[in-house]
């Protein structure tokens, strides 16, 4: 079946990821998994669409919010402080949660998204930006870091038919 669709046998060492989220916390899974997969010998392609496109901007300004994150807690004085959804309505709350998260990231030796993204580029992870999203939100290729391919749904589907692992984030 897959051979009829793709015309190629699937190489087990291939992975594709669709990235739709542009928040600081959601930025980690695609970049951690793609860099690690590349280090383990896989060919990796990431397709960035909707808010995921933000992860390709020259200047990263990613934020984390409590809204829609009902399980969010932050370590505080030996315990954990709950971060209720409602908190996001307080002015400055998003700035505070973003600063808290960035401090934790630094303190715990977790890589920054800038660093992981550079490692992904260095490891020849194929990065594709969605043309329709660029049009929709009025961005241009110049807003993105160098070396980004532009494509649409068919471009991704072709990649997916040739990939052993396909993830949606």
């Amino acid at each position, binding site marked *: 079946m897959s051979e009829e669709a793709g015309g190629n046998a699937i190489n087990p060492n291939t992975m594709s990821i669709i990235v739709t989220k542009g928040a600081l916390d959601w930025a980690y899974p695609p970049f*951690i998994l793609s*860099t*690690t997969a590349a*280090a*383990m*010998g896989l060919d990796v392609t990431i397709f960035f669409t909707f808010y995921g496109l933000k992860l390709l901007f020259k200047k990263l300004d990613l934020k984390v919010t409590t809204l829609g994150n009902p399980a969010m807690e932050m370590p505080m004085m030996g315990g954990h402080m709950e971060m209720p959804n409602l908190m996001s309505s307080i002015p400055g709350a998003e700035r505070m949660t973003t600063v808290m998260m960035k401090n934790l990231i630094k303190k*715990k*030796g*977790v*890589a920054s998204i800038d660093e992981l993204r550079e*490692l992904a580029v260095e490891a020849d992870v194929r990065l594709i930006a969605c043309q329709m999203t660029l049009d929709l939100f009025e961005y241009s290729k110049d807003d993105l870091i160098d070396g980004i391919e532009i494509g649409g749904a068919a471009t991704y589907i072709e990649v997916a038919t040739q990939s052993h692992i396909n993830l949606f984030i």
Partner: protein
Amino acid sequence: MADKVLDAKGLNCPLPILKAKKALKDVPAGGTLEVLSTDPGAVADFQAFARTTGNELVEHSEEGGVYTFLLRKK
């Protein structure tokens, strides 16, 4: 004595693996890389890395919160 030593102490997932992969580039085939890490998750990860890439995890140990991995390059 390993051909190369990588100090990845204080770094969290996935950096020890990514830095080890880079460091292996400077090791000849059949040569060894010693990786030092303080990440407990690295124990399972270096085993998985070795199984998937074919580089051999010759030995690993832990002392005082520091994990030592010895990889032999394929």
